[in-house]
């Protein structure tokens, strides 16, 4: 069930009441309860998805237990390979089979060999990429002896399927989340209030900002050949806003919901659009995935050690894999590659960690140089997002080409095509612009805090008015578009 549904709100109210009212003091019963409600949450989409997650969890639970007991390196490695093959095999079969088959058919057709009909009608289980990576982190950490195996099947299954972050992250490490299933929590009113505010902010980003931006983005991208240059630029910027609002909104809701139950999930976004270079962007965007790739792929294959050739290889491998993780389409592969190419000069020049602190640290107003760097990074990111959003790589190139050409050739005509005449469209557009300004305004003020509404530096009456305003807008737009973009990954 999606967070932005009445069903979820009722579901969570019931879970919350039972959890704190009856079950929280009995650890095993509490965890069993969390497992059951997580399966209800996931099975609500399609009960058949449960078979996969149960199978995947069972394999990793057994492999983890065996890994702990075994001494032989060969046997341990074989078990790890078994886990990797099972998890990545399921992911490959359900997510990438058709992509590879169709790509192979096209390639063979180029050589004059025709073979067709190999594609299968497969449903992509929601969130499979997320829980596959989560469960893999467990097996790899146990294999590396960085983590003890979990001996409670209920705790482990509950960890894999923990409903707040099951379908779109954050991708939790076993070392962070699993031990929390062994702790008893006391209800903390202050944490609950703060978590409620984080959920409210997440909903605002999703249903008010992202869903409204999506209306314009869909209209522009689906008919880009008939749009002016400035409208195409607007489309790219709005998509950047949409995907940020959608995905970081989901993360805020997930983290907030987990905190309401006493669990702490990792931060997944840290104001990525205030980054000063692409390396900083990737430290602030989808942090749980970036760090996963860093720890389980980048560092094991050599990381930033070695000569420039191995650095180039390692960076490109990670970014291309990150692109592939996002979806079975060449556009995602190209998007990953493009980000990798943008990252390369920074890592080869050893300047990829020059912006560790938040921008304008300790200051309200950034310097001109900081503004310039943020604007440049944001513009580059928007260009990359066009490849992420377009149907094909060719579409993305013609979108960008037409946009640049349109702005350079006739900027006035481009401007006139913006929806500025009095109409319902203008109303929507101005509402969207207002909500985007509010989003980035609050994000800027709170960029060094744990979340955007944490201890806002305003007097109480202003804070209450802001919370009520956000709530009214969330209620008003609650049923915007339905699912979150990242569910498809």
């Amino acid at each position, binding site marked *: 069930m999606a967070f932005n549904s009445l069903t979820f709100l009722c579901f969570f109210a019931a879970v919350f009441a039972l959890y704190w009212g009856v079950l929280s003091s009995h650890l095993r019963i509490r965890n069993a309860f969390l497992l059951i409600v997580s399966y209800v949450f996931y099975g609500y989409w399609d009960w058949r998805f449960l078979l996969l997650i149960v199978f995947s969890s069972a394999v990793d639970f057994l492999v983890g237990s065996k890994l702990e007991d075994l001494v032989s390196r060969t046997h341990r490695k074989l078990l790890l390979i078994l886990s990797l093959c099972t998890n990545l095999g399921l992911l490959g079969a359900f997510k990438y089979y058709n992509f590879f088959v169709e790509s192979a058919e096209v390639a063979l057709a180029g050589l004059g060999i025709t073979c067709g009909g190999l594609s299968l009608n497969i449903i992509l289980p929601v969130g499979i990429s997320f829980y596959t990576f989560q469960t893999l982190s467990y097996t790899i950490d146990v294999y590396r002896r960085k983590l003890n195996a979990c001996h409670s099947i209920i705790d482990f299954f509950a960890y894999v399927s923990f409903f707040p972050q099951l379908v779109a992250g954050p991708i939790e490490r076993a070392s962070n989340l699993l031990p929390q299933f062994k702790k008893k929590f006391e209800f903390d009113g202050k944490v*609950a209030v703060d978590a409620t505010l984080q959920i409210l902010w997440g909903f605002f980003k999703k249903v008010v900002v992202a869903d409204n931006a999506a209306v314009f983005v869909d209209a522009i991208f689906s008919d880009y050949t008939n749009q002016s240059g400035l409208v195409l630029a607007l489309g790219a910027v709005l998509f950047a806003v949409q995907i940020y609002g959608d995905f970081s909104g989901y993360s805020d809701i997930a983290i907030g919901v987990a905190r309401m139950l006493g669990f702490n999930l990792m931060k997944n976004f840290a104001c990525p659009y205030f980054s000063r270079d692409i390396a900083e962007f990737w430290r602030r965007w989808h942090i749980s995935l970036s760090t996963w790739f860093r720890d389980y792929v980048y560092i094991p294959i050599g990381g930033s050690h070695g000569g420039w050739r191995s650095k180039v290889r390692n960076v490109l491998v990670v970014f291309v894999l990150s692109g592939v993780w996002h979806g079975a389409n060449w556009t995602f592969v190209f998007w990953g590659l493009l980000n990798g190419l943008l990252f390369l000069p920074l890592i080869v020049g050893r300047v990829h960690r020059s912006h560790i602190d938040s921008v304008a640290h300790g200051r309200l107003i950034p310097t001109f140089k900081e503004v310039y760097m943020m604007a440049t990074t944001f513009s580059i990111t928007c260009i990359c997002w066009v490849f992420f959003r377009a149907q094909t790589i060719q579409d993305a190139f013609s979108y960008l080409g037409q946009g640049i050409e349109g702005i350079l050739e006739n900027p006035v005509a481009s401007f006139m095509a913006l929806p500025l005449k009095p*109409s*319902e469209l203008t109303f929507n557009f101005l509402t969207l612009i207002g909500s985007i300004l509010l989003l980035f305004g609050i994000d800027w003020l709170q960029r060094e805090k744990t979340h955007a509404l944490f201890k806002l530096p305003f007097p109480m009456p202003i804070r209450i008015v802001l919370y*009520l305003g956000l709530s*009214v807008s969330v*209620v008003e*737009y*609650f*049923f915007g578009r339905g699912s979150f973009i990242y569910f498809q990954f």
Partner: protein
Amino acid sequence: MIHYLNRLGLFLLLLATIMWGLSVIAPYYYGNPIYLEKFTYLEDSNGHNLVFMGSSRTLRQLNPVVVDSVIPEMSQSFNLGAGGTFGLQVLYTAEHLLLNSKYFPSLEVLVVEIQLPQPILDINMHTPRSKYFLDQKRYETGANFIRAYYPDEIADTYIQNFRSSRVERILNIGLVRAQLYSLIPRRGMGHFLGERGDGFVPLDDELPKRSYVERRAEFVDNLEHYRENFEQIRKNEDMIVPRDVGELYIQAHLDLITIGETRDVKVVFALMPSGFNVQQNGSRSIFERIPANNRIDVGSYQKWPWLYDTSNYFDRGHLNEGGANKFSRALALELRLLMNQKTVN
């Protein structure tokens, strides 16, 4: 815990009060841009004494000029039809019209097309038009109709959609901005008032638009199929078994007649030509429960065979302008008979 729940409860109460307050101060929402256009126009125009309400069948098929020529005493008729409106929406809007004397102060007769309520399909869920009319009365009426009319397995889904939409209506979710939009002037305002400002827009007038060209082409390409369909309607007319539409939906029609009487307005329900794919058995059962002096039948194949001639049709469900003029005359004659007029053209 209690302290947190108290704070949350207080906040939600404040929020609910604001949502309710917004719904009270926001302008009336008509649920359909055509209604908005026509009602806005009518605020400055008060001479009409005969008004037609209904779906696109009314909008596209009832020509007030023809009606006025047949009933000269009712020389100020107006077509308040709106495309895409369901039975419950029309009854809801008709009630709003009758309860507010600022609309049509000279109104004497209100003719309402008999329609089925229609379920709320998934594609329309969460849109303002799927819920703005769902006050408690309309919700109960709709749910009662669904239970009576559809098999249980389908009814459950439809009832769920009604229930969700009702909750959204109570919480005023997604309606405030729709109400605010209605304050903004729209492009193309005035189109649905028609050439003569009487609200009649025949489908022929829409022809340059692509979607209408496609609709027309579909009908012309499948003319034989539609002829056969009309032939089926003729054969089956005597065998129509009125189908249960739920007592509350029947009662909603009777209530509208009563509300009309309080304003000295005669409410007349009209059975329209069935066209293609319209369940006559449901409409017929409503028709038969309405008092004889508040109903007219302009849907009978046997009585009006030319209304089922494909040459009078624009597409599979609507008459063309020529057909609309014939139909308007037929309806006016029936109406005049009902009103016991003495002069016959």
